C-alpha cells in the first residue's frame, strides 16, 4: 500500500462520506444563525481584531496554568504511590479524560477472572458480558439500580473515555494502588472508581454508592481463577 494509493482511496472515501452527510442539504433553505450564535462569532472576531491584547492575556493565563499544573504535579508525586500508577495515562481531551495504558506487556493471562467479594445489600449478578479482553458484570437491586464492574487485561487495546465535566475527580488508594474516584454531580449518574494493578489489569466500578462504599467494594476484588 503506497501513499498515493491511500491518498486516492482517502479522497474517494471522503467524497462518498460527505455526499451521504449532505445528501438532504438544500442551499436555498439554509438555517440562519441565531442571535446567540452571532454574538459568539462577533466575540471571536473582536479577539481576532485585537490579537496583541489577547495574546498578552493568553500568556498570563498560561503562566497561571503552568503554576497550577506544577503544584498539582508536586502533590501527586508526594502523595501517591506513583510507581504503582505508572502507565495509567490520563490524556486530557477537551472536557474529558482518556484513560489508557501505554507500552504494556499485559502479562495477565487471558483466562483470569475477577470478582468483588463484597457487594452492597440487595445487589445480585444479572449480566455477564465478555468481549475480547474486557469482562463486564452488571449487578442490579430491587430498585433496578445498576452496579457495573468491569475489568480488562489487554490494556493496550482499551481506552476509557471519562467525562470530567459533570464529575469531581478525587484520588484514593485501593489495596496500595492509586485510584481515581469520580463523584458525579448529577444525582442520576453513578459514581465511579478506577484503578490498575501493576500495570497489568485495569478495573472500574460504576454504582450509586458512596465513596467509602466504592473503595470497600474495590478492595474486595479478588482473582477467582
Amino acid at each position, binding site marked *: *500500500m503506497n501513499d498515493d*494509493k*491511500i*491518498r486516492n*482511496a*482517502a479522497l*474517494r*472515501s*471522503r*467524497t*462518498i*462520506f*460527505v455526499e*451521504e*452527510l*449532505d445528501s*438532504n*442539504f438544500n*442551499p436555498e433553505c*439554509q*438555517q440562519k*444563525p*441565531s442571535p*446567540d*450564535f452571532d454574538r459568539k*462569532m462577533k466575540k*471571536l472576531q473582536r*479577539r*481576532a481584531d485585537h*490579537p496583541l491584547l*489577547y*495574546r498578552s492575556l*493568553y500568556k498570563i*493565563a*498560561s503562566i497561571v496554568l503552568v503554576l497550577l499544573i506544577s503544584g498539582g504535579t508536586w502533590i501527586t508525586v508526594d502523595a501517591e504511590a506513583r510507581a504503582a500508577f505508572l502507565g495509567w*495515562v490520563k*490524556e*486530557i*481531551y477537551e472536557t*474529558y479524560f*482518556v484513560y*489508557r495504558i*501505554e507500552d504494556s506487556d499485559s502479562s495477565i493471562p487471558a483466562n483470569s477472572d475477577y470478582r468483588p467479594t463484597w457487594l452492597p445489600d440487595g445487589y445480585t449478578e444479572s449480566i455477564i458480558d465478555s*468481549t475480547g479482553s*474486557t469482562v463486564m458484570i452488571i449487578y442490579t437491586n430491587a430498585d433496578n439500580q445498576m452496579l457495573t464492574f*468491569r475489568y480488562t487485561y489487554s490494556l493496550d487495546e482499551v*481506552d*476509557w*473515555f471519562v*467525562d470530567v*465535566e459533570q*464529575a469531581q475527580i478525587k484520588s484514593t488508594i485501593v489495596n496500595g494502588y492509586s485510584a481515581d474516584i*469520580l463523584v*458525579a454531580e448529577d444525582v*442520576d*449518574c*453513578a*459514581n*465511579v472508581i478506577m484503578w490498575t494493578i501493576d500495570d497489568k489489569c485495569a478495573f472500574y466500578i*460504576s454504582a450509586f454508592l458512596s465513596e467509602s462504599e466504592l473503595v470497600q467494594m474495590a478492595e474486595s476484588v479478588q482473582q477467582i481463577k
Partner: protein
Amino acid sequence: MLIYFQVIETDDDKSKFEAIYKAYYGLMYHVAYDKLHHPQDAEDVVHYVFVKIAENIKIIEPVSPKTRQLVVTMVYNRVIDLYRVRSKHAVVPFNEELQNHVTLEAEGEDILTKCILKLPDQQRMVIWLKYIHGYNLHEISKLLGISLRWAQKIDQRAKKKLEELYRKEGGFFDER
C-alpha cells in the same frame, strides 16, 4: 476561553475565515442538526468547529470543494465526540469498533476505499487529514482538539486496522 486567543492575525486570514463562514455555515448546521436534532447543540458544534478553523486558519485552504469536505467532516467528528460524552454513566468504555455511525453504500468502489470507510470514526478522520490535506500529527491534534500523543496513537491504530481490513478483503500488498 483560551482557545480564542491565538487565532487570526492577518487581513488575508480574516478574509479567508469570513469566506469559509459565509460559504459553509448553513451546510455545517445542517450536518450537525441532522445528527443531533437539537438547534442549540447543533449551533454549539458549529461554533466549536469555527473556533478550530480560526485557530488553524493558516493551514486551512480557502473556500474550495476540499475545504467544504473538511469542515463537514470536522462537524461530524465533533458530533461523535458529543455522543461519547453523553452517557448515562460518568464513564463510558470506548469501543472503537462501534464508533462508525454512518452506513454507506460503497458497492463498486475499490477495496482500499471500502476499507477506509469501515475504519472507526477517529481513525478514518486522521487518515483523511493526513493523506488528503497532508497535515502532520501535530497539526491534526490541534485541528481535532486532542493531544499529540493521542493523535499518534490513533494514527498507529488506523494504519494497523487499515492493513487488517485490506488483507481481510483480499487486498494485495506490493512489497516492491
